[in-house]
Every structure is written in structure tokens, then in C-alpha cells.
């Protein structure tokens, strides 16, 4: 008794085609027929004719997806990766003037310290690569041969919100698209049941700046990051309203579609076809998103590897969700974890507070790499770890020790998708103040990420207010040493 044996898209395409055919036979000649062919083809593309359909990269990619582990607040590289024995020797000495002349720092008007602070953490070398890792990251120490640690990263802005924006968009100004938006704009999404850019958050509070960090700026909003929340409804308004069954919802959507189809035929407006597709995807998301966050079928061994429980929100649970997202083809997954802002005051010292934050991420980030590798996903997935900046070699004179924001040198690590496994790149001077080799600025990081995805960062542009904008602005060099 089904009056519509075809799928909605097929039916729509047929009706639209037939309609235009009938119009076009009214004496419009060959050119009009060509037009109708084009039109038919567009309609036949149906649900795929949307801005998120996959697009070919510019050249052969090394990675398909990115998982970006954003460590909010700026983790101290000097307590984690960039081992500086000389700094320990000089602990308590004033920093030579030559280092800080002409530099600006956050909080420079208050308690910005000028005395060097040696780390109190024990470091050791691990793996084939002999990478230095501190005692605070015991799990991460075990995966050093799967990752490349870069100690010479550099940023530009030194206040949290603008710096985070810079790391995400290549600019400290509001209104620029985040890298996840750029990537979906460039490549589309392999997954038609979930957004192509998903944001997961953990820690005591949201990242500074909030939603602008995953905003699409001047790009269409289709490309903006969709924050998944903890709990059963990961997307706003995902759940069918209370009291309405799934069947009733389906019948509602079917009626909307039928009336929209009829109106599409009458008006000839393709935009209605896009809307029909959007409702179909929304309907699929209602099923696929809760399925994604339901960890019932993850084995005990997997949960143990990540150190998580099925329901409790945590960075670890987000890492597991990130794996599940890339499994489903989601292009860009970004995890934010707060807070690494170790100034030394209450709740933000380099003693207990820092240890706690390290514990919150260490096991799970290592597990993510191991799990991706075991499932064969690591070769196609680039994993990026880092904050918006690092910390100064000088200590801040507060009740407990801490360090100020530092943009000149800090550590990030990279794994999978076309990146060397088991390498340490970039050297900093003996105090860890400036890079002396392979300076890897935010723009270069962006250029390299796009390169790994098969895109030339100078060619991925969008015209806005009379200018062709890029993620890398007018900068950026691919760090070839990072490539496998």
C-alpha cells in the first residue's frame, strides 16, 4: 500500500525531472534541454548535494582525519618534555637580561618573576628514540616510539583567549574560521550521519573564549564545530520531544518531506531539495549520535585501557569517543581539557594541581594512540597534542611555584597520519627560552596539518570582504622533517 516505492531522493529527482521536462518541451530548444540535463543531475544527486559531501583533496593525502587534543591553559613543557638540566643548575638566578629585553608578558604589571626556576620533576629517556619524558607522564612515556615530540613550537599571542583563538584560526581576531571548519570546507565529510567537526570538552570549566574556538567565522555555518555534550543528548535538540514516539517523529518528517517536495516542484527552487536532505540527515543523526555515545559494546579491556567508566564524563571517555568518531568518518575531532594554567596560585600550582591534570590525561592519551594503532586507524588519523602556548623558564613568585605564559618555545606532539613515529624534533636553548632549531610556529603547524590532509595551505582560500583568506594568513611553511 506504499504509494511511494522509490526512496524519497529518487522520487524527488523523478518528480523534479518530469516537471522540468514538461516545462521544457514547451518550445525551448536544445540549450534548454542541456540545462534540464544539468538540473536533473543536480536533483538526482539528492541527499549528496550538500556542502558536506566529500571533496577530493588537492594531492594524495597522508591522513584522512584529525584528532586534536587541546590542552587549555598552556601546559608546562619544562615539567613534561623539554628537559633542561642547566635550568636546574641556575635555579633562583635572575634570567640574563639578553633573554627578556623588549619582550612582553602577561601579568607583567604584577608578579611576573624574573628568576629562573629549575624543574623539580625527574626525567628519563624512553623508547628507541630516547625521548625525554618526565615522571608525570608514565603512560605517555610508553608510546614515545609512536609519536613525534616537537620542542620548538612557537605562538604569537600571550593571553589565553586570543592565543587559543590564534591556535585554532591562525588569528587573534574574532570572526575567522577554526581549522576544523577550514578542513571540512576543503574536504567535506566522509560521514553523512554526524557533523564533520565535533568538539568534546572535559575539565573543570569550558575553554577561554568558548564557542569562537570552533566557530566557522565567515565560512558557512555548516562547517562550524558542533560541541557534543556529555550525557544522552550529545547535540542540542537532538532528542525527539517528550511524549512523541520515534514512529510519530518519522511520520512527521515524512509529511514535511512530501509537502516540501510538492513545493519544490512548484517553485523549481533547489534550496528546498537541500532542506529535504537536511531533514533526512537530522533524522539519521537522531539515531547515530546517541549510538555513538553509547559505550555498551566497548569491551572491558578497552575501557580499562583508557581508564574510564562507561557513563562518567572525563577526558578519557572523550578520547574513546574520539576514536569512535573517526571510525565513523568524522573529519575533525577536537578535545579540550582544562586547565593547565600553572601560575602557582591556589588551584594552579606546579605541585599537586599540575600532577592532577597530568593524571587526568596521561593514561587516556596514550591509550588513544595504542587503540588507534591496534585497529589500523592510526595510519589515517593525525593526532595532535598541545596547548595555546607554553610556560616561561622563570618561576612566578607566588605561594607555590608556577610559571608564566610563554609563546617563544613550547612542546607539542604529533602521531599517526603521515607523521614520523619515534622522533624528537626541534631544540631550544639551554634555558628552554627560545628555539634554536626547527622553529615550528602555529602557522607552520597549520600548513603541515593541511599538507598531511592533501591540501596546499596557500590554495585553500575563501573570499571575504574583498580578500582571499587562508588559515595560514600570509605565512606558514610545511615542516618536512615531521613527515614520515
Amino acid at each position, binding site marked *: 500500500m506504499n504509494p511511494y516505492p522509490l526512496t524519497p531522493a529518487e522520487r524527488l529527482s523523478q518528480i523534479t525531472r518530469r516537471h522540468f521536462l514538461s516545462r521544457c518541451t514547451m518550445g525551448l530548444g536544445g540549450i534548454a534541454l542541456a*540545462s534540464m540535463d544539468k538540473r536533473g543531475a543536480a536533483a538526482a544527486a539528492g541527499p549528496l548535494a550538500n556542502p558536506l559531501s566529500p571533496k577530493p583533496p588537492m594531492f594524495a593525502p597522508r591522513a584522512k582525519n584529525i584528532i586534536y587534543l587541546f590542552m587549555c591553559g598552556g601546559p608546562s613543557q619544562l615539567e613534561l618534555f623539554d628537559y633542561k638540566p642547566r635550568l636546574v643548575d641556575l635555579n633562583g638566578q635572575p634570567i640574563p637580561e639578553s633573554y627578556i629585553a623588549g619582550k612582553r608578558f602577561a601579568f607583567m604589571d604584577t608578579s611576573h618573576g624574573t628568576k629562573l626556576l629549575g624543574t623539580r620533576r625527574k626525567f628519563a629517556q624512553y623508547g628507541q628514540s630516547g625521548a625525554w619524558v618526565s615522571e608525570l607522564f608514565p603512560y605517555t612515556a610508553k608510546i614515545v616510539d609512536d609519536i613525534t615530540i616537537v620542542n620548538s613550537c612557537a605562538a604569537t599571542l600571550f*593571553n589565553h583567549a586570543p592565543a587559543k583563538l590564534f591556535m585554532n584560526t591562525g588569528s587573534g581576531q574574532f570572526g575567522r574560521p577554526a581549522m576544523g571548519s577550514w578542513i571540512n570546507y576543503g574536504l567535506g565529510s566522509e560521514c553523512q550521519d554526524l557533523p564533520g567537526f565535533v568538539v568534546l570538552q572535559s575539565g573543570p570549566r569550558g575553554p577561554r573564549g568558548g564557542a569562537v574556538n570552533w566557530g566557522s567565522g565567515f565560512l558557512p555555518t555548516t562547517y562550524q564545530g*558542533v560541541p557534543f555534550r556529555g550525557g544522552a543528548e550529545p547535540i*542540542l535538540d537532538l532528542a525527539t520531544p517528550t511524549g512523541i514516539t520515534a514512529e510519530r517523529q518519522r511520520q*512527521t518528517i515524512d*509529511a*514535511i518531506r512530501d509537502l516540501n517536495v*510538492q513545493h519544490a516542484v512548484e517553485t523549481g527552487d533547489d534550496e528546498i531539495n537541500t532542506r529535504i536532505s537536511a531533514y533526512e540527515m537530522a533524522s539519521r543523526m537522531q539515531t547515530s549520535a546517541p549510538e555513538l555515545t553509547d559505550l555498551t559494546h566497548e569491551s572491558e579491556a578497552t575501557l580499562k585501557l583508557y581508564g574510564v567508566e562507561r557513563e562518567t564524563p572525563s577526558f578519557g571517555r572523550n578520547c574513546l569517543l574520539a576514536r569512535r568518531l573517526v571510525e565513523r568518518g568524522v573529519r575533525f575531532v577536537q578535545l579540550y581539557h582544562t586547565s593547565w594554567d600553572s601560575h602557582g596560585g591556589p588551584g594552579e600550582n606546579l605541585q599537586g594541581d599540575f600532577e592532577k591534570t597530568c593524571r587526568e590525561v596521561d593514561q587516556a592519551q596514550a591509550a588513544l594512540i595504542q587503540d588507534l594503532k591496534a585497529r589500523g586507524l592510526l595510519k589515517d588519523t593525525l593526532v595532535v597534542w598541545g596547548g595555546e602556548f607554553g610556560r616561561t623558564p622563570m618561576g612566578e613568585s607566588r605561594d607555590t611555584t608556577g610559571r608564566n605564559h610563554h609563546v617563544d618555545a613550547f612542546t607539542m606532539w604529533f602521531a599517526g597520519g603521515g607523521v614520523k613515529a619515534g622522533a624528537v624534533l626541534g631544540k631550544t636553548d639551554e634555558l628552554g627560552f627560545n628555539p634554536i632549531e626547527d622553529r615550528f610556529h602555529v602557522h607552520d603547524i597549520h600548513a603541515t596539518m593541511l599538507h598531511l590532509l592533501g591540501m596546499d595551505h596557500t590554495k585553500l582560500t575563501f573570499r571575504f570582504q574583498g580578500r582571499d583568506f587562508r588559515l595560514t594568513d600570509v605565512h606558514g611553511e610545511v615542516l618536512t622533517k615531521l613527515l614520515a
Partner: protein
Amino acid sequence: MIAVKKYFWAGWLVTSTLAAAPVDYLRDVKPILTRHCVLCHGAEDPEAGFRADTAQSLREGGDSGISPVALTPGQESVLIQVVRGEHEEIRRMPFKKPPLDDAQIAILQAWVAAGAPAPAAEEPGKYIHWAFVPPGRVAPPAVKRADWPRNSIDHFILARLEQEQITPSPEANPSALLRRVSLDLTGLPPTGAEIDAFRQDRSPGAYERAVERLLASPHFGERWARPWLDAARYADSNGYSIDAPRQIWKYRDWVVAALNRDLPFDQFVIEQLAGDMLPTPTIDQKVATGFNRNTQLNGEGGIDTEQFRVESVLDRTNTFGTAFLGLTVGCAQCHDHKFDPIKQREYYQLSAFFNNSVDDGHGKATPGGLLEFPDERPTAESRERDLAEMRAELTRYLDGRGMAVMKWVQALAAEERAKLKPELRETIDVTWDQKTFAQKRAAYGAYKSDDPEFRSRDKELAQLERGEAKPPSTLVMAELPAPRDSFLFINGDFTRHGDKVAPATPAILPPLKAEKPNRLDLARWVVDPANPLTARVAINRIWQQYFGRGLVETENDFGSQGSLPTHPELLDWLATELIAQHWSMKALHRMIVLSATYRQSSLARPDLELSDPTNKLLARQSRLRLDAEIVRDVALTASGLLAGKLGGPPVFPPQPDGVMTLGQIRREWRASTGEDRYRRGLYTHLWRATPHPAFAVFDAPDGYSACTRRLRSNTPLQALTLLNDQQFVEFAAALAHRVQKEAPGELPAQIDFAFRLCLSREPQPTERQRLVELFQQQFSAAKGDATARREEAWLTVARVFLNLDETITRE
């Protein structure tokens, strides 16, 4: 297959030349040559001895003796071959630069084909970009189909269509037309009574009368305020990471009122830019200066406040350029503008006009920067909100210092302890986390009573707690008694001062004749009829609301990188008409909506698919998805819930839980009750960091920078909002209720009634039938008695109505 491809190519060429008026050398060709060729083929040591800086030198050719623009039968000219990269010997030009785009090549081709005409006595390599030449006024052109035009606009549109042998579309049917003009002028669909009145009015002038009614409606100002507020980057919070709430809604209400009373556009601009500097300014004129106070304020700790004060000044400069001049002056912040004649120095001269105001970068109260209204009492609800907000702020402040307080407590000597007030003494040892807000406040007060920041917050909160409500206020501009020094910033870096600069306007525009000009002089200069940009930019922005695209598509860039006007003479005619009508915006609105061009049907036409697929020539109207706020307003109107109240503090309609946790500071969103739950979208509190999701999802801007055109995206998240959002379900329930109450009777008649409420038209029989089927399906599946089942079935039908593409579209 090849044949089809050829057709496309041919069709495409037709289209691209169609996009602009017939090619004019100075306006269209010379800019391309100047930008792409003259660097190498200029007066000094031209490559291959060939110059491209005048049409004459181009005709002459270079060392080879061949004229690049000479026409040989059956062959493209050398110029075209070369820019296409098809010449056998010469490399593709511009050499080692990106190729010209197809539209540029089409312009060159059309010009060459016309014999490369150009005015004699041409100055080499120099051209004045069209937008910097004051608008001329040509008489509306004659047309063959003399019965079609209804006013001058139509002459320009039809003349162009006739030139391309395209016929305009017929007038939209009366229902569609009434819904269109109602949505366009007031942002609300017509009521049932208005539809009936319009249909029954058979006498001539029915449409004109409807237009007059709509122009006089107070909702006109509400609808047209929104695009202006977008450009003014209006929001109800401070932005940056802290995003504290702010009061500046009096400015929003000023815009609504000014549009409603048709304040002439020149006055509208002057009061916003410099109302405070007018002789004996009224309160209203001061409120208007909120335009320049819609900058962000950074409340983060540890910032360099001068940096953010400078950011505000530069933001004002950039917004000034975008909003009034349609120029991307911001490009000159770090270097001379690459494409437009604006030097970096001129940018800082312009910004110097905005560098003397009293506000700082941190949002601390500055004398003169805040206008209070002591006679106005805030509502109980807004007092509650203020209280909650202030308590939360103080809690955050105290929590940052809790550890220090507890240290002090531990070190207290017995005699000091004895001196504490008894109620404080009893709780002083409770751990910080366990302390109530009152205990934290008392403990901190005892520990550091001389902390000025604490004292001012504490005092303000105490006043509010005593019931001394804070009067409403609004942010305004005020000048410092002595101007600040202004400097050029090297590479845009405010720490690197270059030369000192004085306020001045860009040299490419008419001079500002004043000694030591100030912000008021700048405001008067910008609306001087001699300014070639202001009226054009203004009218173009109005036009784009009605047709989905401006006559200049790049509504925020009238510079050389912007697109050329599709109808340059019409743009100029309208710009001069705006001035001739004493800058009356309503006169322009009236003229546009009364034109035959505006009244056309928006149905797609197969013939136009090929000849003008993006509808630049306006042989039909366009279907436009409604703006975010209007999506809400339409649902509110259809359901009968809309509260018609105008103005006042922002309101908080329900939104899904968890939105406010996405910002750095987790703020509370307490849903408004009573009529404030059902106000127009314009009045919803706009947090920059966490905008209301039902608006953000429909492309409402976030107030970070001037937005002069909204995107119209079409996404699954919009579907989820309309399907599942609590408020839309609430609207659907009200619609279901209303239909049953106001149209008792047979189901088909009820469906017809709902069609009128939502779509202002009758259904087609098939549409009605589909909904009857749906109703019956739902009714038989539902449980309970007949009334309950009818309720449930109607709720589904109502949800379908609010989700239709047509409901959220202006046709």
C-alpha cells in the same frame, strides 16, 4: 557529450557578460589592466617594449609590432589568447601570477570585440575606481514594453532585460505578494483579517494601501533595526572570554524608534557617530552614540588594558569603513591597502577621530561613558537577574582568593579572633568550599576590608539587596577634555609607534573642510552629498534585503576588489534619489516595494536557468530563507503567542540546557516568564560567547564585528531546532490549540485555516489531502478519548506546518 559541453560554454559566456552592464573601458577594463599588467608593462622599461597603461599604447603593441587587440577573423585577439594561456609562443599572462578569472577575461573579450574603444587623452595607468566618482544621474531609460514599469526602478531593470531579450516574470499572486511585503516591511506575516481585507479590496490601489499600513506599523522599525544592528555589531554582553552582561538596549530601542519616525538617514548617521558632540544634545542623541560603544570589553585578568582600548579604537575605525563607506579600511591597519587607495597612514588618521573617547579597554566605569536613567525603575525580574549576576561575579572574585583567606584564618591570634563579630567567629573555620556565599563574603570582608575592588562590588550588591535597584543605563560616547596623541602603529602593533598622526579623512574622498576636525566633523563629512560612497552603500544594503543580493554584490566592499554593480545607473539613480528625498529611508522602501520588479513572482524559470542562473538581472523575484529572528516571529505569530510589546530590556526565551556552559564562564540562563517568553527575536538577550542556539543555527551574527550580510545556510541542525526545540514544540501546541478553537468544524476547513496562519494562502487539494491523511493516521494511532486523540493528531500537523520550507521562506 561534446555538443552539450559546448552549449554550456556558450551559455556560460553569455551569463558572465550578462552579469554587468555593457563594457566600459574606464570602469571595467582599465582596472584589470592596471592591476594585472601595468607592473611589468608600464611606462618604465616595459617588458617586450609593450605598454598596457593606456588603450592607445595597447593598440600600438610592442617590439613585435603586433597589436594585441587587433581582430583577425576566426581567431581570438593576442590579448585574449595570452590571458587564456592559449598563445603558441607567449607564456600565459599575468606571468607567474594567478590567471585572470573568467569574468575578467569575458570583459576584455567584449571590449576587444567592440574594437577596444576608449576616451582620447587618457592619463597613463591612472584610473579612478567607479565608486570614488560621485554618482551621476541619468534619466530612467526608455523601454519597449511601456505598460510594465510602475516606477523609475522598473525602467532600469526592464531596459537591461530587453537588451538581453529576456521577459520579466508576471506579478506574484496576491497571497504571496501580501505575505512577501508584510515579511519584508515588518518581519511578520499578515494576520487573517489583513489577508481578508486585502483580497476583498478590489478597488485600485489596494496594494499601495497595504504598503502604507505596513510602513506606518511600529513593527517596521523592529524589522529594519535588525540589519542595522548587525552592522553596528550590537550585543548584550562584553565579549572576549569573560563575556559579562552589559546594558546597551536603549541604543537598540533608539534605532527602532528612529526608523519608525523616518529620521532622515544623514541625521541617523550623525547622531550615532557624534550625537554627544552636537550643540546641547538631547538624551536621545547621546543614546544614539551607543553605535560606537558596541565594541568588546576585555574583563580578563592580567591584560594590558591599553591594548584593548586600542582594539576598540581600531574596531570603530573598521566598522566606520564597513558600515558607512563600504570599504575594507581594516586592510590598511598593517600596511598600505593592497588594492584600494588607502594608505596605512590614512588609516591611522581616520582612527584618530575615535581615539579621544573616555572609555578604557577593561570595561571599568568611566566618567561620561555611562548614561543612567534614574527615573526608570527596573522590573522585579531584571532586579533578580542583576542580583544573581552580581552574586555570581562576587563569588568568582572571592573564590580566587579563598586560599589566602583561609591562611589568614589559620594564623589568627586568639585576641584577633575575639574581635570578630560573633556570627562570623562561629563559621570562620568552616573550609572555604563548605562556606556559604554569605560566609565567604563576611570572611573576606574581615580579612581584607580595604580591598577597593571588593568594597565597590560589596557595596553595589548590598544596595541591590536592600532593594535599591540599579537604574537602567546605556553605554555612550564622550570625549576626553584633551585629545590623546595618535600614532601610526608599525605592522599594526600598538607597541610600535610610528609617526604621530592627526585626524583626517582618506585623500581619495572629498576633503573634510575643517580646522582640527573632530568626530562630529567626520559624521557630517560622511553624509555630505558630495561623498560618493555613503548613499550608494546605504541604498545597496536596503536593496539586498529585498532581492537577496545588492546591486553591488559585495555589499561590504565597494573597492576595487569588490564586484561591479549589475545596474550601475540604477544604483546611482537610487543614491541620488535618496538624497533628493531628503534622506528619507521610508521613501526608498516605498519605491522599491511598489516597483513591478519587486512584485514579480519568484518561481524559477527554465529559460533563466541558462541565461541568468543567479538572477542578477532580476527577471524574477527570489525565494529567501527568513532571518533567524523572523523564523521565530513567524512561528509566534501563527501560533497566536506573539507578545506585541515594543522595546525594553532584553528577554530570555527558553533555550536548551547546557548552552551557557560552553563559554569560559558558566552563566545562568533563567527563562523569562509571562509575555517576555513570547517576544520577537529582536529582543532576545544576545550573549556574544554563547548566543541563543535557535538564532545562531539560522546564521544570526554574534556581534563580534560588523556584519553587513547574513549567510543563508541550510543545515540539519536547523531541522533539529524546528523539529525538537522546546520552544518550537510549544509554538506548535499553541497553533494546534488555536486552530481547534478558532476554526471549529470540519478537518479540511481547519487545515485551510492553518494554511492561512502559516503560509497566508489556500492549500492545493493534494496538500490538504496529505495533511488529512496525516491527521487520520495520528488520530487512529493515538490513545485516550476523542479529544485527547484530536489534540495529539493536531500537534503533529502543527509541527509539520512550522517545519515547512515555505513557512520559513519569503517567496
